[in-house]
């Protein structure tokens, strides 16, 4: 029996999962290299969305131009973020500092502080309220296929997720910079010894990761038809969860888990109140971690 409502729920869940996945890709890339949580990733996503909306409101250019502009903004944001919140803490290269927990928690907090500042500044400049995206540019038009309803945004987000994922795999496994990113992610000290410019590689990682975050931001904004200063927070937490479920360093793992989380939430809503169904996602997280303590697709545990 074909239950259209249930399949529709799967479609809904899949598109929510794709949103988480778009954020999780950049998140995981940065975590993989630096081994620290970048709390400001959700703000890069938000800044990308705002930059895109400002451009659309001012000039109404075609989507491709918007995306290119947002990519540039994301690159600048990533570069600035790395310089501000992460670079200063690499001045301590002695062994005691490298092993110190306090130092690792320090970058976590510096990115958190930067994210608070960015969010408050955006709120001051644009106001705390939701800002609408001009209707002509929104990707919210319904597309009816049989009994199922899709929207143009869902196709665009799906396409973007596939393109980003494929592009990143190409970048990581077929280019020189990808090779050095993987080398630094694997062993920063070793990478340094073989002559890789770790500083440059880390910046490149931040730029690539933030470009993806910013593009995710504008696409999701077009899909939902609005932007607001705290838009990066909730999906950012889910992306973080997806990354950990996937095993931290595995981008395909993070994507799969992100989509799984979206589906789990949607299907759970079918049987429970939405309030409880959000907790189903966290329940799955705990179950995953209990049975796979290093995530579904993670390697062996790393020794600090």
């Amino acid at each position, binding site marked *: 029996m074909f239950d259209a409502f249930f399949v529709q729920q799967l479609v809904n869940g899949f598109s929510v999962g794709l949103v988480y996945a778009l954020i999780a890709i950049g998140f995981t890339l940065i975590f993989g290299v630096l081994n620290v949580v970048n709390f400001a990733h959700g703000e890069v996503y938000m800044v990308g969305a705002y930059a895109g909306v400002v451009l659309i409101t001012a000039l109404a250019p075609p989507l491709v131009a918007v995306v290119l502009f947002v990519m540039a903004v994301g690159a600048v944001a990533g570069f600035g973020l790395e310089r501000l919140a992460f670079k200063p803490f690499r001045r301590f290269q002695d062994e005691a500092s490298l092993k110190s927990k306090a130092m690792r928690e320090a970058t976590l907090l510096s990115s958190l502080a930067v994210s608070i500042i960015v969010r408050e500044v955006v709120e001051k400049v644009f106001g705390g309220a939701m800002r609408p995206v001009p209707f002509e540019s929104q990707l919210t038009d319904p597309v009816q296929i049989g009994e199922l309803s899709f929207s143009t945004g869902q196709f665009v987000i799906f396409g973007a997720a596939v393109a980003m994922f494929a592009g990143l795999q190409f970048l990581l496994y077929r280019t020189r910079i990808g090779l050095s990113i993987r080398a630094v992610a694997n062993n920063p000290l070793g990478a340094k010894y073989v002559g890789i410019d770790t500083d440059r590689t880390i910046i490149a990682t931040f730029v690539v990761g933030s470009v993806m975050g910013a593009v995710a931001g504008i696409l999701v904004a077009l899909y939902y038809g609005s932007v607001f200063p705290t838009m990066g927070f909730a999906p950012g937490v889910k992306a973080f969860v997806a990354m950990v479920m996937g095993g931290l360093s595995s981008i395909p793992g993070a994507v799969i888990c992100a989509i799984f989380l979206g589906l789990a939430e949607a299907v759970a809503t079918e049987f429970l109140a939405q309030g409880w169904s959000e907790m189903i996602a966290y*329940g799955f997280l705990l179950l995953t971690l209990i049975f796979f303590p290093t995530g579904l697709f993670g390697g062996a545990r790393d020794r600090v």
Partner: protein
Amino acid sequence: MSKRILPLALPLVVALAVLVLVPALLQASGSGYLFRVSITAMIFAILAASLNFITGVAGLLSLGHAAFYGIGAYAAALLATQHGVPFLLTIPLAGVAAAIGGVLVALPTMRLVSIYFAVATLGMGEIIHGTLLNWVDFTRGPMGIPAIPSFKVFGLDLSGNLGSYLVVAVVMLASLWVLHRLTHSYYGNALRALREDDQCADSMGIDVVRLKGEVFAIACFFAGVAGALWAHTTGYISPNDFRFGESILVLAMIVVGGLGSLPGAVIGAVLLIVLPEALRPVGDVRMIVVGCVMFFSILLLPKGLFGEVSALNLVRSSFGGGWKAGTARQSIGWR
């Protein structure tokens, strides 16, 4: 000779300052506002000190601490409003409830390390918050619990500014003292070993799993105590007070203050509670300023305002004759 006096001097000075000097100054100012800010700062000092015990001393990054604070607050509120339990009992019972919650969280997450553990606590925190919010029959859900009685004992009304201050101050001093004793003892050394390298600690004969469970139970007990104080001093609680943001705020306190350092945790708590209040005159940009202060304090002092090394040195110089070479004391650690 001075070594005999010193072990008592520092705690006495702190206790006198907190119990006599500060309330005297506040009373002289006649400002209920300053009393209130001090009470909030002290509650968060307990909270920060308890998180410091998990994250700073034992090295388990917890992103769900607000949930245990919430369990404590709800336990105290429900006991006080529905069963009329006096606050002398609700405070320890709230601690016990939170500790039980902590053990239940710790049991399945024992095997997890580093960031996996952190995310598991985040998930647990969200589940507990969601339960407080959605289990309407038991917690009254988003309606919250109003009319929680303030401090009253044996007909003595402590609900005024000074009374509430003194109750919170005494509980805070007791909590900090217990956490201090636990941190600077053989037990604390075992915890630091766990933090630095749990596999190594395991091979040295330290029961890592049991220790993790105990640490969680102890820290959550004090988080629950802080929650009970919040419930009694505020009079109304709702799930909003125990969101993920509160966990992050407490984490920020201990990092700004200096991970692993008890004085650092207290300083961080006082700073991050007092600063937003002190900045009220600057208006809408105050949160930007708070963010900047956080950022620069981490940038310039990445090991915190009062880091662990300075804290250990302080403890050793003022209490721990045994840790210095060549002293006649028989014990090696500070008991």
